[in-house]
């Protein structure tokens, strides 16, 4: 199976967020970008499928600015991906999600792809539209909110569950398709030192990004705000658990006004 996995480097979860001087975006000065969250889990899922399906290859693709997109690709190679393609976009902030999807689709359309895996959303903009947009551009079906993805070689079908508002749905689907994974491994594999060293020398195919068609809608950030720092909990004083319960219900009713 030819598996393509899409990744986007995002600020490390521990990053202290700051507003850029012009007030419209995150200040990316001194921010550490990493492969994390759902994207890291998508790489893990790709590698698990590869291991379970002899003859498979995993090709990791990223559309983003230097140097972080290249670093995320090298991190994926170190984890066990076989090939990497980078659509290089101008330095600075990442492209908006539909622009990223267009850039990814152009690259993916030139490489073999039975299954395209994406994380549910990137941990920074949380748009969650790249998978659906990719599927539309590649002309294949897509499946979102996917958990428990398996390949059933006997029937040549993917089998998986989807977690939606209605409950857990059970699905089967043929290839090719795009899958957005809800599944996240809390402890995905970590790269070993020899693999990290080797990944530094591995070739990465580079594709130039093209300007966006003038007919396409785009979005432009105009403001980036941080919430006022939370001042800490108002602690409820009590002598007995019953008193704590009564006082809490009273403040939820009368002060916070969120009691059902």
């Amino acid at each position, binding site marked *: 199976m030819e598996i393509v996995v899409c990744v986007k480097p995002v*600020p490390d*979860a521990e990053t202290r*967020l700051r507003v850029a001087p012009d007030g419209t*975006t*995150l200040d990316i000065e001194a921010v550490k970008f990493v492969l994390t*969250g759902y994207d890291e889990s998508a790489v893990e899922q790709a590698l698990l499928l590869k291991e379970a399906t002899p003859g498979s290859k995993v090709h990791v693709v990223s559309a983003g600015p230097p140097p972080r997109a290249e670093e995320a690709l090298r991190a994926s190679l170190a984890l066990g991906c076989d090939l990497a393609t980078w659509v290089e976009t101008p330095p600075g902030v990442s492209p908006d*999600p539909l622009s990223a*999807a*267009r850039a990814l689709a152009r690259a993916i359309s030139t490489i073999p792809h039975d299954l395209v895996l994406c994380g549910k959303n990137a*941990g920074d*903009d*949380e*748009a*969650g*539209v790249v*998978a*659906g*947009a990719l599927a*539309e551009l590649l*002309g294949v*079906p*897509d499946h*979102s909110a996917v958990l428990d993805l398996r390949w059933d070689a006997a029937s040549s079908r993917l089998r998986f569950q989807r977690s939606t*508002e*209605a*409950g857990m*749905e059970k*699905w*089967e*689907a043929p290839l090719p398709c795009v899958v957005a994974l809800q599944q*996240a491994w*809390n402890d995905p594999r970590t790269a070993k030192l020899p693999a990290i060293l080797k990944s530094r020398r591995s070739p990465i195919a580079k594709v130039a990004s093209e300007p966006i*068609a003038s*007919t*396409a*809608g*785009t*979005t*432009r*950030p*105009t*403001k980036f*705000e*941080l919430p006022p720092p*939370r001042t*800490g*909990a*108002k*602690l*409820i004083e009590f002598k007995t*658990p*019953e008193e*704590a*319960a*009564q006082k*809490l219900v009273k*403040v*939820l009713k009368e002060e*916070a006004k*969120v009691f059902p």
Partner: protein
Amino acid sequence: MTSPTLVVGELHEGVLSDSTKEAVSVAQSVSGKENVVGFLAGSSPRGPAAGFGRCGVAKAFVAEDPRLDGAVAAVVAHLVASAADSLGAELVIVGGSVFGRDLVARLGTRWNAAVATGVTSLTRTGATLEARRPVFGGRATETRQLQGPHVAIALRPHASAAPPESPGDVALTAVPVDGVPASFWVPKRLGTEVVARGAGPGLTDASIIVSGGRGVRAAENFRLIDELAASLGAAVGASRAVTDAGWRPENYQVGQTGKQVSPQLYIAVGISGAIQHLMGMISSRVIVAINSDATAPIFKVADYGIVGDLFQVVPALTQEVKRARGQ
């Protein structure tokens, strides 16, 4: 004059979902009540489409085909794009749901739209639309200007109150389904195991959530969380420690790698408040923490805190909630 705005409906238990009504409300406030048109696809959409009328929407498109049940986003996007073009609509709004996001992803590409998802507020100034949306797990908020011939928006759950309902008629126009290319109809759903509302998978659209963490100590103690949630009519969530330990399945997990939730009220029980967890719930309106460790980071982000033994406090709270709600 403002051009028409299309609201794509979704059903929950056979009627228009709350998220659809919220989308109607947002559309009415940015485009004017008379400019909002509904859209509903399904095996028999005509009955439930009447719900648009009760929300003050006078016109709606319906696409009728048994294969449309289960909201096949690729197909619905195709139908919505044609309906929007026939209407001259420039803006499509859909509620905050898995389907809403899927639809907007497809539609944005197909219809050359500027797209924003997880939107909490949408404003129009002159000809300019701006969307506000939480990012970075609710640790920041961004505003984006939406530029283009078309705009497609998916809201975040609870972005708005539903409009007041009153008797009202909606005129229905059928949208032909036969123009959809065969390749758009996707493979087989084998079945849906409907999980009771209030259980883990109902998390993202719940207005109250009670979550348990490591402090609960064992799977069998989790019933304390279930009972408190039941008394409040709340959904049940869990921290990563709980799902890692297998006390609850992973679709209960709230956090960076689990569900991101923004209820009106979030009660964290026995949860220390690791950044991983905070990234899933920090945008909740009111946060209550119950933990025996007064130095737990959760107390820094909570609005109200009880420093105490959850095994004593939670049962007492369940009793008090039942009493206050007359149960």
